[in-house]
């Protein structure tokens, strides 16, 4: 398995270079270094000299990909792309255009993002799987029918509605928890209970329907009939046998997102005032801060690759027949 993981990590290198290249290309198609300078220096009273100075100071006065003014390897190395990309592979993200250290900013924001995303993920998974199993348990009954109707209704409603409605009902009308805000440590609980509950409720409809389909497919298999023939109760059949055997498709969708949890949720974090990573990339795009955009896309790619490798590894844990070679 070690060799497999190592091979996958080596495969990741060209992928990361490609992602970096595409990000770089797309960013500079829309924004020129002059635009970036103007955005940072402000729109009032900016002079061409100030723009040139800003670019020179940050290394944006070089050509993008190819420097025809020099010779040899410098033609490639003395470019914005090379200079800005090289350090990233050692996870040295440098500074944002506003001078803040990007790594420090990520560290500061990661905690609140995880504080929201982890309970949402765990509770959401438990709730969805449980609801799906219950629906399967009561399959073909009126409970199953109305349960599916409820799931479809829940997944049809915009998450924005859950957020605004939840804030209005629970925080404004009933005054049970703060509408928005965040505090470090245990005090964070009272700020997180509503966004977590809303996120779980907003996501449970679609997830439960998806898991129900998986379980229904599984329940018609021979081993289930055998288990029932052995006299096992339906509860034991579902929770012990069906759930275990349905793990592969569940893990495919679930494990891959685990590393991405720390990237945060833009909408929920924005509405609930949680100072996480959710809005970091969007803010950076709006501010034309290439250093942050590049760093966040790079981290996202790395985490996605890690997530895929973890998914592969998790298959071997739930299904002994799977071997990573």
């Amino acid at each position, binding site marked *: 398995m070690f060799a497999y993981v190592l091979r996958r990590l080596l495969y990741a290198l060209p992928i990361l270079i490609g992602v970096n290249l595409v990000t770089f290309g797309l960013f500079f198609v*829309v*924004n*020129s270094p002059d*635009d970036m300078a*103007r955005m*940072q*220096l*402000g*729109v*009032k*009273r*900016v*002079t061409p*000299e*100030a723009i040139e*100075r*800003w670019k020179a*100071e940050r290394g944006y006065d070089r050509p993008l990909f190819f420097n025809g003014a020099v010779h040899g390897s410098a033609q490639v190395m003395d470019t914005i792309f090379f200079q800005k990309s090289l350090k990233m592979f050692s996870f040295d993200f440098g*500074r944002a255009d*506003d*001078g*803040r*250290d990007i790594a*420090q900013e990520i560290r*500061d924001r990661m905690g*609140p993002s995880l504080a929201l995303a982890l309970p949402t993920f765990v509770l959401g998974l438990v709730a969805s799987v449980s609801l799906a199993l*219950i629906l399967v*348990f*009561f399959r073909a*009954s009126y*409970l199953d029918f109305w349960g599916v109707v409820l799931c479809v209704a829940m997944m049809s409603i915009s998450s924005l509605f859950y957020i*605004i409605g939840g*804030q*209005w009902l629970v*925080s*404004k*009308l*009933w*005054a*049970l*928890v*703060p*509408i*928005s*805000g*965040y505090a470090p440590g245990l*005090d964070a*609980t*009272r*700020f997180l*209970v509503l966004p977590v509950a809303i996120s779980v409720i907003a996501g449970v409809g679609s997830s439960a329907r998806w898991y129900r389909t998986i379980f229904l497919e599984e329940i018609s298999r021979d081993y289930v009939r055998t288990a029932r023939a052995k006299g096992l*109760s339906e*509860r034991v059949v579902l929770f012990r046998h069906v759930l275990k055997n349905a793990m592969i498709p569940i893990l495919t969708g679930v494990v891959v997102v685990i590393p991405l949890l720390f990237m945060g949720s833009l909408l929920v974090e*924005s*509405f609930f*005032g949680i*100072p996480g990573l959710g809005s970091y990339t969007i*803010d950076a795009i709006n*501010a*034309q801060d290439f250093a942050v955009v590049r760093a966040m896309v790079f981290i996202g790619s790395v985490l996605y690759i890690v997530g895929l490798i973890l998914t592969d590894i998790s298959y071997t844990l739930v299904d002994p027949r799977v071997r990573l070679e």
Partner: protein
Amino acid sequence: MLRRFPLLLVFFALLAACGPVWNDPYPASEQGRNIMYSAFTDRPKHLDPVQSYSEDEATFLYQIYEPPLQYHYLKRPYTLVPGSAATMPLVRRYDESGRELPENAPASQVARSVYEIRIRPGILYQPHPALAREADGSLRYASLSAADLQSVRSLADFAEAGTRELEAGDFVHQIKRLAHPRLHSPIFELIAEYLPGLKTLQKTLAEEVSRSSDALDLERHAIPGIEIVDRYTYRITLKGAYPQFLYWLSMPFFAPVPPEADRFYGQPGMAERNLTLDWWPIGTGPYMLSENNPNARMVLARNPNFRGESFPCEGEPGDQEAGLLADCGKSMPFIDKVVFTREREGIPYWNKFLQGYYDASGVSSDNFDQAVTMTSQGEVSLSDEMRAQGIELLTSVSPSIFYLGFNMLDSVVGGGADAEGQARARKLRQAISVALDMDEFVSIFLNGRGVTAMHPIPPGIFGARDGEAGINPVVYEWRDGRAVRRSKEVARRLLAEAGYPDGRDAKTGEPLILNLDTTPGGLGDKSRSDWLAKQFRELGVQFVVRATDYNRFQDKIREGNAQLFFFGWNADYPDPENMLFLLHGAQAKVKESGQNSANYVNPEYDRLFERMKSMPDGAERQVVIDRMVAILQHDAPWIFGFHPKAYSLQHGWVMNRKTGSMVRNTLKYQRIDLERRSAARAEWNRPVVWPLVVVGLLALAAIAPAFVHYRRRERATALGGGR
């Protein structure tokens, strides 16, 4: 589910332990304390006083730094008074031969102006590690090693903080910082025009920067034109006459910064820890930044070393009646701490204001109808709901203008080089100015939160006239004591005179097509562009919206490729020069990279501008301004759009708030009635528990049949029909 119920009960029991209010977003330790709560939407980009130039940043910076001058909090029109200066600067003017000129000497005779500024003795800086000293008097943290900084993450990690008295040299140091090549001060070019020594200094510093990446030591460099007279006095010598310089002296660009701060923050390893002057200001003002997390909250705490200042005892008429002089002579600041929480979305911000968790709020379009009602006469008043909560509404016209500019370099709307073409184009611009009903625009798209502009100068700034003398005669006529927009018929006639009868070229018969260049969120938005198209259609003119991203839009403006565009300007200071320069030929965007985006050039206007800018306010200046305004109204390089109105709501427990966008160091004047706030919060936020019981019962009602079904099914036999 049933098993989780106790957990929920424990959680709500914990909430109950927090006090009678469960949804209070602030720590229990802050209850009843003299703290003001506010919110911010966009994170400040710069807190370095030579770089900061936006309103978001001014909210913080003006409370921390004390420039030599400040605006009187209550007086209108805006009046400059001493801040950290002991008195108003002594200004002397000299001619080429060095002879001192009288105060009313024409600007053309003035070769240099000398500003002598004497500061108040005894002002101390806020406690700061940069000023901490050892017993022998040397700086405690001036030569830190990597090991010293290992566990340092914020300023609070430094065990000691110190202070010292403010000196004239600190102001001079800050002026030198304007020339710092790494700081990119936005006003460098402007000030260097009058203070050429800045350019000389910047050249020297740039050479030094190119040789070494070390922090610059500005103390080693002198700046021509600036002189330290004594410990408390310094002199600035400007080229020519620039009376508006006094306004700049009220901004943080000219606030004092101790050289020790640059030495402290310039040490290796500081910037990597986000320890910079751009992030942790050091000032002498009433507040100091004690927490800086722009992603969550920023906190200003009372500066224990603040010199103390008394609440003003004079104001404008009506201030006494409004209770704004009740704290006359009392020592400021009144509030111990100001907590700014970041609210990215308007809905939670608004709801928290209604719950009493923010002391004041703006009025956005989303909650306008809930907050404000319009009378049949178009007057605004608070809604009954707001009144019931004791909320008060403050309104003021902002010193800003939004306008639709014509690119005078465009052959259709600018007219080209020949006089005949220019005359036709002028008629065309006048026709469009009449046809675009900006009163309707303000009413539909701004809920009436704007004053239709007659010229570039906003109300409240010298030069703006009221009544009949203040109208734009091209677009309005004075009838029955009020300005009435001229009819569409007038616009059609002007259009025909321009050579486009019924919107078609009289020679070719081709339809006239006008293009509006805009950005998403600007006038390109569907409803607004539909409205504009309708206005043009009534003239028979075809209207095309060319929406593009902000960068390309800026490129078009810079290169003169736009035809019609929507722009705005927020005045830096309350002087007509700061508005009328937007149409000065020397500021033309394409030719001079200036702020005149319309590229309008009129020799008479330019001549008058040069004369007006150095004149003191008075009848003579008003005559010149009237002529300049008349030229603009006749030439119509802009469709004068509107001056936005700022609407602000505050709870009844907030005292001494007065609107006025120019006055930004407002926090020290404000006071909170803490008892009233606590009582209101408790009353408005009583937790309602019964819905939890109902939800629990509903859950039980849903689970019960399922449980019955489950039991029946588990007990059923294969042949029993239990399904």
